[in-house]
Every structure is written in C-alpha cells, then in structure tokens.
C-alpha cells in the first residue's frame, strides 16, 4: 500500500539529521585540558558550568551506584581503530585501546600514552614502552603488538581509512605491493623497544602514532598477509589495554563495559559503563529523565537554558574542532576574480547569522583553523565585516554592473548563482534566506537546489557544484589542511591553486620546530584570508552534559571524555 513508501520517505527526513550530526568527525586523539574558568569562546578552552541544584537529580540516575550511562547516536560495530569509520565507534575504541603518543590541550603531542620516544636525525622515531602495561586478558603489551597494529594498515587488502603511504616509511612499498614479509622501516628491537624509520623527515608523522595498539596474539592468531577476514571477524569482540573492556554489544542498542582490572594506570573507579543508543530528537529528555548520565548536546540557547535550569547538570562547552564554510568553484568565470569572492563575503552578515543560529555559542571564523589550536593565528587578517557598500564597489570594479531589473550583468550575462544545499539543515535554514535577500540587494540572483549528502559530495567531487555549504573537521595537525588548500589537493573542491601556499605547506610539513611551524601556517592563513577560495563562516561549540553526581568528568577539544572517564567517581 502507498503508506509504506510514504513512511519510508518521511523517515529519511529524520535520518538525514543523523548523517549531518555524524559528519565533521575524524579527529584523532586529544590532549589534557588547561585550567577552565568562566570566559568567552575566543580566549579560553573549556567553559564549565557547575550544577546549581544537585538535589534535583532524577531518581533513576541516583539509583545507579556503580554504573555510568552515556548516550550515543548509533554504532557501526567496527570496534578497532584500524577499521573504524563512524565517530561513535571511536568513543568505544578509546575505552578499550591505548596509543603510543597522546596529545595535549592545544593538540601538541605528549608522552602520556603507553610509550616515551626519542627522535634521531628527524626521521627515526624510537619508542620505548612503559612498564607494567597489560592487555585486559593479563598479557603484557610488547613491541611486536605495536608492529602488528601498524602492519595491518599496510596490508595489501586493507580497506580502512588510514593512509600510511603518505608518511614514507622505509620499505612500505615493498610490503604493500611486493612480497616483503615485514616493513624494513618498522623494526622490533626488543620486547619494549620499536623503531620507525622514514625516508625523509616528516613533521606530521608524530600524529600518526596516535593509533590504537592491539594485541597480536588475539587478533593475529589466524592472520596471514593479504587475508584480513580473521581480524575483521573480531571487530565486535575487541580486546585492548585500555581502562575498560567490552562485555556485551547489542546491535543498535548498547555497548556494555566493565573495568579492566589489569589497567596499568590504576583501577577505574566506576566498575560499569554503558553506552546506550538514544534518539536525536529525545536525547535531551532521556538525559533530563535520568536515563543517561552523559550526553553530547547540540549547543543552542534553548538547550543550554533547559540544561542549566534542570539544576543537576554540569555543562562542559568548548569550541568545535572544525568550521563551517561556503565553498565556491573558483574555476567558474564568475568566481575566478578574487574581488567577486570578497564581495560575496562582505555582503553576508555572518555575525548576525551565526548569532541567530548559535547565540553566544558560536563565533565568526576567518581562518581555517580552530581558535584554540596551537597553530591558530589572526595576523594580518581581514575580518570581512558586513559592508554592502564595499561589496557593491568591489563588484563594480570587477565589471559587474547593475542592470535595470535590479540584477548585475557582465558581458550580457546575468549574475546568477546555483547554490547546492541540503534540506532541514540547522545552518542553511537560517543562512540561505538571509543570503537570498542580501545577494538580491547586491544584484545577484541566488537559486537554491537541495540534494542529499552523498549527492552533494559527488557534485563537489566532480566540480559540478557552483556554491555549497559544508563543514570540515580539524585534526591536531595543521598540515592536514593542505589536503584542502593545496593545488590539486584531494579535498580541494574549490579548484583553488596558489604556488606560494603550496610551497608553504611543504615547508610546514618538514619543519619540526613548533615555533617556526606556527609562523609558516600564520603566513598561509593570511594568504587564504585574502584570496578567499571559500568563505569561512563559523566555528561553533560542542557541549557535553554530565550528571552532577559524576566527579571528575573531563573533556576538552583535543581530549575526548573517554580519556579520563576511568578516573570519574560517583558521589554518594
């Protein structure tokens, strides 16, 4: 009957929101946090609001004396960092696995992981495993486990997202495409020492060592090079050296953990943790009712009000590791002139739009980097404040003259923009009407079409989209932006190219001194801000709500809440 198909269409509408919430992930590990005191988003990292009336704590939550329940959106069951794709699986993996290198507050690498390291000649990394580190089955973590964890990524049939080839490990090609049985550049020296050698220095590789370490004996029991099936069979039965081990996985419902009694940093205070699936539209209600203790909430004035008003909620809010931007195909004649792109930026009142969407919890951003990253810089930046006159002047300069019908023309061609967007998008729902109006005033006819996310992706991939809106997720390594902004970069959908920027990115990837690296990226941001291959709109906030009976809950932009969850205690 007709009703079935109709229902499926309407459900798709709801589902779309899930996709939107999931994109923008892709972070690697994060770092410890700086001191947090009340301040605004621009200068400080985490804004914490402590619960004002813990007595309002719902009974259902209070009854849980030894369990923490965390709300999640969905799981894909790929519980191994090597194969993970969804960001929710990442949280599960962080409970179970550990890494060689951890990252601090600002995203810089520190040795809070399972190893310390030294670097020789800028291209050799020698890791020494710390003492007493055991997997949850009691066996010791050894260097061969580290080797195994990385060999998986180089397997000829490896189909995960990690791209090991770009770092230039010695002998990588021989292993991946040839018959070598191991990688020359990955050498196990003894049970606790392992050496990684690159062909050339590469400052970005340090972030590569934040991958999850898995036990060779468990995952590699039936593994032979080229056949990953036995490894993948264990994707839903993970085992690692992290603070918790997985007890049960109910598809589509929950993941249950219990404390790893062999955890080398100490016994986790709370014995049981459950990640449970909640519905996006009612996650707030589940939390307020006590069904969950921790949940990541959308940041909006209404949500913050509701949570603060509930009384028993600790709110942790910090800048999202990512930014939203308006992409443009620079190769199109109408967008190839820098002045036109700048005019489009001046004509959009980003401040009011961001305020309307996020209130005080979002900020206009002008460089492609997070405000709290170590490489962030505002040197020599043009803020492109809302200025219709300037925009009109720039367009006149670029040869677009105003016609009698209220639209601009150049060489007989009307200035029209075909905008490809997605429906039911919290940002576009507000930004598009404003853009349509502002650009009309400017003399530009903005036509909007809606498509779904994969179609949008394909359109940007084959350069058939003129203008669109998307968001990038950022990693602690600023060099990753080169994928977006270098000529021919895999994520460079703008058709933008600047030899100067390309040179600077190459320099940045080789420079191992942090201060010098920072200066290089500052220069890049200055150029990008002037040339505007895309118009960066905002950096918003992420917010975690935690039940006040949890003491010691800790989260920062570069450190997920899972990192310190084992230290959390439940107040009596």
């Amino acid at each position: 009957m007709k009703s079935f198909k109709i229902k499926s269409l309407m459900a798709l509408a709801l589902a779309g929101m899930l996709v939107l919430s999931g994109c923008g992930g892709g972070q690697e590990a994060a770092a410890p946090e700086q001191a947090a005191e009340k301040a605004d988003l621009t200068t400080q990292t985490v804004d914490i609001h402590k619960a004002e009336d813990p007595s309002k704590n719902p009974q259902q939550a209070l009854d849980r004396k030894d369990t923490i329940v965390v709300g999640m959106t969905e799981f894909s069951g790929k519980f191994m960092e090597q194969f993970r794709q969804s960001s929710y699986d990442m949280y599960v993996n962080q409970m179970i696995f550990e890494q060689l290198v951890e990252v601090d507050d600002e995203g810089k690498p520190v040795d809070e992981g399972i190893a310390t390291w030294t670097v020789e000649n800028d291209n050799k990394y020698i890791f020494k495993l710390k003492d007493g580190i055991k997997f949850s089955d009691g066996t010791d973590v050894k260097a061969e486990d580290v080797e195994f964890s990385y060999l998986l990524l180089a397997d000829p049939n490896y189909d995960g997202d990690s791209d090991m080839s770009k770092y230039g490990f010695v002998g990588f090609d021989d292993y991946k495409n040839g018959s070598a049985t191991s990688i020359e550049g990955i050498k196990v020296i003894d049970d606790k020492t392992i050496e990684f050698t690159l062909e050339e220095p590469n400052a970005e590789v340090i972030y590569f060592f934040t991958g999850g370490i898995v036990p060779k004996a468990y995952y590699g029991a039936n593994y032979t090079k080229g056949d990953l099936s036995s490894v993948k069979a264990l994707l839903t039965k993970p085992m690692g050296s992290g603070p918790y081990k997985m007890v049960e996985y109910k598809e589509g419902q929950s993941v249950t953990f219990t404390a790893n009694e062999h955890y080398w940093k100490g016994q986790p205070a709370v014995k049981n943790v459950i990640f449970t699936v909640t519905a996006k539209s009612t996650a707030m209600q589940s939390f307020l009712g006590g069904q969950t203790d921790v949940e990541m909430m959308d940041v909006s004035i209404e949500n913050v009000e509701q949570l603060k008003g509930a009384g028993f909620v600790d709110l942790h809010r910090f800048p999202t590791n990512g930014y939203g931007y308006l992409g443009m195909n620079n190769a199109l004649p109408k967008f190839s002139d820098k002045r036109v792109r700048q005019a489009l930026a001046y004509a959009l009142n980003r401040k009011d739009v961001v305020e309307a969407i996020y209130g005080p919890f979002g900020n206009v951003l002008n460089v492609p980097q997070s405000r709290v990253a170590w490489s962030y810089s505002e040197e020599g930046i043009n803020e492109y404040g809302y200025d219709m006159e300037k925009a009109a002047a720039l367009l006149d300069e670029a040869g677009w003259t105003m016609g009698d019908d209220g639209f601009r023309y150049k060489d007989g061609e009307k200035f029209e923009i075909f905008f490809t967007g997605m429906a039911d998008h919290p940002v576009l729902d507000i930004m598009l009407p404003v853009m349509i109006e502002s650009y009309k005033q400017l003399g530009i006819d903005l036509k909007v079409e809606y498509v779904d996310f994969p179609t949008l992706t394909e359109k940007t991939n084959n350069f058939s989209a003129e203008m669109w809106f998307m968001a990038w997720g950022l990693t602690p390594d600023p060099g990753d932006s080169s994928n977006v902004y270098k000529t021919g970069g895999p994520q460079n959908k703008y058709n933008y190219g600047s030899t100067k920027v390309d040179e600077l990115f190459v320099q940045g990837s080789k420079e191992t001194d942090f201060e010098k690296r920072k200066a290089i990226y500052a220069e890049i941001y200055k150029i990008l801000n002037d040339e505007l291959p895309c118009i960066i709109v905002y950096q918003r906030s992420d917010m975690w709500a935690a039940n006040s009976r949890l003491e010691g809950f800790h989260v920062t932009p570069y450190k997920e809440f899972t990192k310190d969850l084992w230290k959390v205690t439940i107040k009596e």
Partner: protein
Amino acid sequence: MEAVDKKVKINSNETIESPWRMTYRRLKKNKLSMVGFVILLGMFIFSFIGPFLSPHDMITTNVLNANKPPSSQFWLGTDSVGRDVLLRLMLGGRISLLVGLVSVAISVFIGTLVGGLSGFYGGWIDNVLMRIADIFMAVPTMPILVILAAVMSDLKVLPERRIFVVMFILGILSWAGLSRLVRGQILTLREQEFMQAAEALGLKDSRKIFKHLIPNVVPTIIVNATLGIGSSILMESALSFLGLGVVPPIPSWGNMIQSVNNFYNFQNRPWLWIPPGVCIFLTVMAINLFGDGLRDALDPKLKR
C-alpha cells in the same frame, strides 16, 4: 433504459432527471459535504488570494526578530529568520494543495484504470497488469527519487519546478495499491446479476467497466484518495531531504510542520507548527466530508 442528459418534462407533475443532475442535487442537500466543499474552497482562497492581502513578503529576513510569538504586527508570530508565519502559511498552501491533489489525481486515475481492466478481463490481461503492479510495489521509491534529484540537478532544472516533476513521478509510482483494491472489488461485482443484465443487453466493454462497475467501486476510491491526499502533503516535506521538495524561500505546510522535530519548538513555540498542522487537518477533513457526500450522492440505492 438509456439515460438522457437533460431534464425532460413528461407531465406537469413529474420530471425525469439525468444521473448527474441527481448527484448534484443530492450533494447540495448533504449539509456535511457542503461544509467540506466550503472549507476546501476557503483553503484555496486563503492560499491563492490571501498573500496579496499581506503587508509582508517572502524574502525579507530579520534574524533579530526571529521566533517571536503572535503579535499585532505578525498575527501568527515569526519563524526562525523573522518571516511572517501567516504569510508563509498562505503561500505554503499553494504548494501543498497542488501537490496533494496532483499526485493523488494521477495515482487514482492510473490505479482505477488498471484495476478496472484487470478485474474485468481477468485471464492473461489480469495476470500481466497485476504483475506489473507487483513490480511497481516492490521497487524501492527512494533510490528512484535520489536519482531523479541528481538528474534534475545535472540538467539544472529550475528548483521551483522540480516539486511538480516529483509529484508527477510519485503519482505514477503509487497507483499499484489502489489498483489491487479496485480489481478485488470488481472481481466480486463482475459476477453479480446486474452485470449479467448488462451482458445480456450487449453493452460495450468500456461501457460495462466505466458506467456500471467503476461507480460501485467509487466509495473505495474515495477513501483511498482522501487518505492519499493527507499523506502526500506530508510527504512533500520528507522529499526535501532527497532534494525534491520546495527550496527557500518557498514555504510549504509540510516543511513548516518539520519544525516540530525539535522538542523545544514543540513545547514552547506552538505558533510554528500548530497552524500548518491545522491547515493540513482541515484540508484532509474537508476532502473527506466532501468525498463521503459524493459517495452517497452517487449511490443509486439511496432513495432521497
């Protein structure tokens, strides 16, 4: 006896009415169906003429005045970018009413035709038509719509026009259920005496199907149509997700009601979603009442 399409005076006390006249008269007498008709008419006037009476327009935004409750300036309050909800409601009706009626009209037409032919002829015609119906029912609609969206995007079809293409396609994809219902009923009716009489009279097949069988199936068709219109209107908002619904700044009742997805809006901003909900309900109700009246009016067995 052959029906005559005009009033014929036999003697001064009696007139013979044509079936259509009779239907029309009965319809007028049925108070409830008239109520339905009036509401429907009202909706059309509201949507197509109303906007001209509004001091506001569709394009001007004022984000600082967003989400305000009803006031003397904005009778139904403002939406998330400060636009007048009442105006959007009126404009939205244009899309939603057309969308609902067009797609249902198409699916009813095709469904009745196929079901009628299938049920009447039986045999291999029935088999082939019903297997085609099976295929239409089994093919998943969503991928088709996604592809349609992409094709229209590649062809740079004007976004405002796309919704109509979509409604057309949806009507074509959803006739199968109705055709089965119609066919089922005809299988029963076919064997009844009045059909044997028609056979004895030597009437043409098309006449037998359309003048005798189908009118008896009309009640079911009407129920199906009324049910279909409501869901078509709602479906339009879901289509946006695939890239086929209305695009800003054009509103529709379906996409206005999507605001209820947000629990905060649901609890605290009733002016955003109650108006479109009421409009959809009234439209569906009106069509249903009118449809019921139509069914009763067409019913030869009622002595009124």
